[in-house]
């Protein structure tokens, strides 16, 4: 850091934000070059929670490695597991039973709701409103309870496995999800009244952290971050997996490209997730919840890539197999990593307080970036 101070121009100041700063939501370390209070440059320093998951996976079997991926984007653990299961199924050519497909989509959308709820609370807290955080956590708790009953876990689910899901839905699942939807619908309107329509909040969001369409594409952004810049990139629409081509939902996009646009895209996505759950909750087909698979999975020699839409964007799993029981090389394309690379571009010229707002709307999960 000392060298960097030496290279700055007269009057510029280098400030460390993190790795233990509350607004970075994890161990992200930003080195910010300031001129007065204006940001000249933001440089993320990563690796505080790097566990070399890709290396670990090289010595784990195709059933085991899925569990590690819950520890990457822990707020989208279902969807991470889903992506890995899809990739293994692609390689093994396993046909997933219809019941499992619907269960998977239901779980994915519940996860997306829970993740966006946490984001909403944390984001409001970042810009100075503490109350929404408690609202969001109260509602999120309901989803966690539903998850716990079926999956036995509240955060790292490990519920999806190659061929389907690990066990069947809890008998109360449908009833509880319907009760939750009825409860949460009113809450979303409350969210809007409490935060979205607040002029002070809008003042903090509008025109801050602008990301043009071209920049969003060039920086490889995905998920709500890119969609707020009018990039249509929803994997659920572009290359539908499971039953996403059979449900009616809209890809929420925005044209603003600023923090408020990103905020609105996520708020819209919550309503779309609820619509998907509503269509499926009474239509879970009867039958097997898991396809019959061999005890030891051996992917044929070759390369397999599958992608899913997590709450943060496009999550890719790239397996290179040499025909053994473990992958030769595995690569996880995490959405947060690419989204973070655009942070410097978005933050230049803004104030430190705005940087916190920009990071809030990027919805970063650090273990997902560090892997």
């Amino acid at each position, binding site marked *: 850091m000392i060298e960097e101070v030496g290279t700055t121009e007269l009057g510029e100041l280098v400030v460390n934000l993190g790795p233990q700063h509350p607004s970075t939501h994890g161990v992200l370390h930003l080195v910010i070059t300031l001129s007065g209070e204006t940001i000249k440059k933001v440089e993320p320093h990563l690796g505080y929670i790097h566990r070399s998951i890709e290396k670990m996976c090289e010595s784990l079997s195709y059933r085991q490695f899925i569990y590690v991926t819950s520890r990457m984007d822990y707020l989208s653990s279902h969807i991470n597991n889903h992506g890995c299961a899809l990739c293994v199924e692609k390689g093994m050519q396993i046909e997933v039973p219809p019941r499992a497909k619907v269960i998977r989509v239901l779980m994915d959308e519940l996860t997306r709701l829970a993740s966006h709820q946490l984001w909403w609370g944390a984001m409001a807290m970042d810009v100075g409103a503490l109350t929404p955080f408690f609202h969001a956590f109260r509602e999120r708790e309901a989803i966690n309870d539903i998850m716990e009953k079926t999956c036995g876990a509240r955060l790292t689910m490990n519920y999806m496995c190659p061929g389907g899901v690990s066990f069947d839905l809890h008998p109360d699942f449908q009833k509880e999800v319907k009760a939750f939807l009825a409860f949460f619908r009113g809450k979303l309107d409350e969210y809007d009244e409490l935060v979205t329509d607040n002029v002070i909040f809008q003042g903090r969001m509008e025109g801050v952290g602008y990301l043009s369409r071209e920049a969003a594409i060039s920086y490889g952004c995905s998920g709500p971050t890119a969609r707020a810049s009018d990039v249509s990139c929803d994997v659920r629409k572009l290359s539908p997996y499971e039953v996403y081509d059979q449900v009616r939902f809209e890809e929420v996009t925005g044209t603003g490209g600023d923090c408020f646009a990103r905020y609105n895209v996520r708020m819209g996505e919550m309503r779309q997730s609820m619509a998907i759950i509503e269509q499926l909750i009474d239509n879970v087909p009867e039958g097997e919840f898991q396809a019959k698979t061999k005890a030891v999975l051996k992917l044929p020699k070759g390369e397999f890539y599958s992608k899913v839409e997590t709450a943060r964007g496009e999550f890719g799993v790239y397996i290179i197999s040499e025909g053994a029981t473990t992958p030769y090389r595995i690569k996880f*394309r995490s959405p947060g990593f690419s989204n973070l*690379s655009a942070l410097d571009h978005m933050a230049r010229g803004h104030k430190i307080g705005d940087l916190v707002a920009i990071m809030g709307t990027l919805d970063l999960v650090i273990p997902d970036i*560090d892997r």
Partner: protein
Amino acid sequence: MNPQELKEKLEALLPSPTFEEGGEWTTVFVDPATWAGSARLLRTTKELDLDYLFCVTAVDWKTHFTMVFHLSSTTHRHTLVVKIKLDHEHPEVATVSDIWRTAEFHEREAYDLMGVVFTGHPDLRRLFMTDDWNGWPLRKDYEDPVNMIKL
């Protein structure tokens, strides 16, 4: 563009491309010496318009390295996989961070974990590991008796 058209277009555009069959997407091998020019052609040619770089992977094959670039087009919706074979002793290839900005981070990751050097990269430093770290953790011959637990 469908895979066949994509292939024909690439044959006309790139210097001596070789294709790999069997993958989900069209896969082309590019010579490391021509990568910088080829990448620019892939990005700027109207019919291809490969503007979205979504995954960069370095693979250690013990005898050589392979860099894998997954590209897609947000206008035409086709996907292309570009592979570049690199020497194992001195893995070195030109950067594409000036063409796709996201490559700056992805190439730093490949450098940090695999030791692939990207010439012309604006800021080629370690990304995850500490600056004084020895060795390239994702390589197959990497040994670390302290931090690595063998199962």
